[in-house]
């Protein structure tokens, strides 16, 4: 077995671009999925039956599907269903957003539900509207409980971006697998890919542990 690690160094530029695209996908998905999750959670908790049911259906559907299947579905079915052709990057982004919005919605709902009912009642008693009470009393408190869970979702999302490689989005996994098939340096490229993910993911996992310790609610 002869190993030639120089292949990794030769392709450093492409790997770096791939890693940056992975980070970009993670950031963009979260930017869309946090507001979408808040909207879905508020819909779910609203008094309107149809709004609540629509949100519940969306969330339960996308929470109970393998992400890789959603990626394929977004690639093959969505353009036909809605009549717009997206680039592979946008398609991957949409699939990730659908998935993460559903998770975020559950996170926010749990956060809002964790604030005692008496607080909402007190706010209404002093003459605030439900919406005002939500914005000024409930959400600022729920935020603290939501943050650790959002951080965990962030790390999962960072790892899940590797799945959009199946529709040829040139992020880290796809780039590394492409270089592997061009150069036939299988072990070197796969190990480099794992190492780069590890180098980026390990500090994030540790940061999440820290956030859990700092913000976690103890009984």
């Amino acid at each position, binding site marked *: *077995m002869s190993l030639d690690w120089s292949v990794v160094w030769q392709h450093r530029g492409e790997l770096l671009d791939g890693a940056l695209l992975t980070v970009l996908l993670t950031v963009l998905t979260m930017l869309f999925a946090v507001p979408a999750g808040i909207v879905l959670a508020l819909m779910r908790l609203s008094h309107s039956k149809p709004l609540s049911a629509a949100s519940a259906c969306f969330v*339960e*559907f996308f929470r*109970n*599907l*393998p*992400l*890789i*299947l*959603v990626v*394929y*579905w977004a690639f*093959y*079915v969505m353009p*036909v*269903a809605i009549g717009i052709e997206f680039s592979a990057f946008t398609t991957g982004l949409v699939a990730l957003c659908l998935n993460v919005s559903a998770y975020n919605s559950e996170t926010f709902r749990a956060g809002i539900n964790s604030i005692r009912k008496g607080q909402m009642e007190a706010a209404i008693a002093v003459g605030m509207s439900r919406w005002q009470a939500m914005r000024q009393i409930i959400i600022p408190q729920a935020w603290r409980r939501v943050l650790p869970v959002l951080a965990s979702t962030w*790390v999962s999302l960072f*790892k*899940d*971006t*590797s*799945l959009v*490689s*199946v529709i040829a989005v040139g992020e880290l*996994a796809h780039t590394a*697998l492409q270089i*592997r098939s061009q150069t036939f340096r*299988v*072990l070197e490229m*796969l*190990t480099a*890919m*794992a190492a780069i*993910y*590890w180098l*980026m*993911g*390990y500090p*994030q*996992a*540790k940061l999440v542990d820290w956030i859990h310790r700092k913000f976690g609610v103890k009984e």
Partner: protein
Amino acid sequence: MELDLSPIWDNWRYLLGGLGLTLLLSALTVACSTVLGAAIGLARCYGPRWLKLPLVFYIDSMRAIPVLVVLVWTYFAVPIVTGVSFPPFWAALIALTAHIAAYVAEIVRAGIDSIRPGQVRAGLALGMSGAQIVRKIVLPQAIVRMLPAFGSILSITIKDTAIAAVIAVPELMKRSETVAGQTYHPIEVFTLAMLVYFVILFPSTRLVDIFYRRVAHLGRS
């Protein structure tokens, strides 16, 4: 948009076989990673001090690396390093077990840590041995508290087996892809696959929730 369901009727045995393989791979992965993860979690809590560092390193590494990378590495790189190659199914089982056991280990640790230390001290005060305390006081309560998290492991595993399609394990995801590609009817085939996964995953998470509500009182202290 015209829907043509004939690719599904023509290939239903093939797709059903894929579903069987998905369920088999999920069941084996859950079983293996529960055993391995429980061993790792217990070793981390009660094992010798020198063992903790490598175990924590393993768990945190698995939390940092995507399961796709673990699968691809196990299937393509392990044969180069060790000279032993596995068929896709076994490679997927090994990779998924290695990945999910780390999560199980974390669940086991969190469950054990959630039991107040006063209970262990009370056990010691009554003259119980360390092993007796773990077996009779800590674990019976901790296991009940771990149940909801185990439920999510079940659905995470079923979802992760779909990723094994990238190393050509002929489970439901891979076979749907094949049928979609051969018949040029991706819409019908992928929508069917979505419905099938949903129909498996939704009740399994719900059943675990219901079961937990039945037994939750046993974990209170």
